[in-house]
């Protein structure tokens, strides 16, 4: 049996970080699915990358910098348009405790 890479508790921790919730059945399923995927990822350890630079950016070019110029902002009604939870021009959310 493959050693478990990620435990159910870790799955719960990651879910909390990602603000997702799962029922017990889903947690079990996720734990086993993630384990088989992570097991597959172990493959990367076959490669010696100690002296390899990471590629964070696949292109290299001069920095794009914008002028310090003010342009019109969106009108308030367009900003609020996509939410029905608005009040006096603000977005309304449950209170932060």
């Amino acid at each position, binding site marked *: 049996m493959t050693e478990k890479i990620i435990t159910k508790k870790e799955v719960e921790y990651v879910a909390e970080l990602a603000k997702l919730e799962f029922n017990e059945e889903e947690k079990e399923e996720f734990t086993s699915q993630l384990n088989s995927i992570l097991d597959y990822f172990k493959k990367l350890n076959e490669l010696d990358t100690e002296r390899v630079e990471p590629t964070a950016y696949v292109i290299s070019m001069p920095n794009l910098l914008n002028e310090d110029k003010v342009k019109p902002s969106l009108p308030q009604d367009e900003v609020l348009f996509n939410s029905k939870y608005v009040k006096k021009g603000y977005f309304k959310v*449950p209170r932060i405790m």
Partner: protein
Amino acid sequence: MTLNQLTAHEAINLIKKKRITAYEIMQDIFNQIDKVDNLIKAFLVINREEALKQAKEIDKKVKNGEKLPPLAGVAVAIKDIIATRGTETTCGSKILKGFIPPYNATVINRLREAGAIIIGKTNMDEFAMGSSTENSAFGPTYNPWDLERVPGGSSGGSSAAVAADETFVALGTDTGGSIRQPASLCGMVGLKPTYGRVSRYGLVAYASSLDQIGPIAKDVTDCALVMKVISGHDNMDSTSVNLEVPDYLKSCQEGIKDLKVGVPKEYFIEGIDPEVKGALDKALKIFEKLGAKIEEASLPHTEYSLPTYYLIATAEASSNLARYDGVQYGYRAEEYEDLSSMYQKTRSEGFGSEVKRRIMLGTYALSSGYYDAYYLKAQKVRTLIKEDFDKVFSKYDILITPTSPTPAFKLNEKVSDPLTMYLSDIYTIPINLAGIPAISLNCGYSKGNLPIGLQIIGKHFSEETILRAAFNFEQNNGVEKKKPSIKPAKHKEAKK
């Protein structure tokens, strides 16, 4: 033959010559949509009135003898992951149902300036995560060649719409093959540009360092036409490159004598459908006949591209999708106790399971203690994969591979096992990791009359070269030019 069955360049020509009007074209387009889209379900939103209005405006310009912009009257369908001002943009997800962006993506503005008529938004795998369009929250799209099969994904709706003559061209997006694979499965031409060639401003992000917008079209000429319009530097995208856009149409015309072609041996492993292999072998002979020099090449790190891709893409996605929290727009859960539970319920109810799986994977890969082992490691392997291509392109001008190891598979055939699904991406993913361009085009049909796609890969900013190779092949490949018959299953005789 109806006008919607034309290619874009044919339609443009006829409009210029005043043989047809843009309005007539739009009528045939919408007739076709009305006729077949209830079977194919390529579209999520159709902008009929606005399109007809714009068609009339083009016709007025023609009448007044005004100079026409390059895509005047061309119907374009847009994958629903690209922001269109005033039109719903859902990314195939419940969490963005009803979201109407207050702005246009740059590519939309460029298409509009070029006279193109945007007819609607197409279906897709939710947030571009998937390769069959079965992960859409709004139901799958069906392959026009066989309605029991998938059109591919994640740009399945765009690809199917073009294949079914519901539009001339479409825009798709490609993060791990999502333009090329559906183009291949639907027999169309699909091009993923070099990373940075086309602006990503307005492209709802999945994996920021891999995503690109590109055209899906009926032939290489149409593909080149759209590329000319959408490519180029954008001040709103720091990752868009400031390089001149060549005349892609012109470069198609030259021949491919002495073109050095590499065929990576790692792509012809077990698991490739024998009919796909057969079609590729035939295609390579055509290239040879046209003067190209073909040799076996090697991309030794190919097998590592999947875990590399999935770690990088899911990590970036987990961050890009964190903004979907119900605060400003989109779905918000109805019942919750406090802020934290509002976030959790909104996201858990609003996202589909594939999206949640990838967010979990990506979050884990970035989390404290695991960053080095997963994300950083993947970025280093990415360097090795990129170097494979650098080495190979110092010797060859292009690489040729299959686009997909199989023709279109049946719906529900692969969805249950996530690992199996991942494996079908192996031909396309390394290209995104290296940021290089690639085009897929039809090279034959299976015995079951399903399209088989050929992929041509080039080095950074060599779209001209791959378009030229594709054009020459298209003009000389002897493959029968046919259209799908779009018959629902019950009308098919016992063809199995």
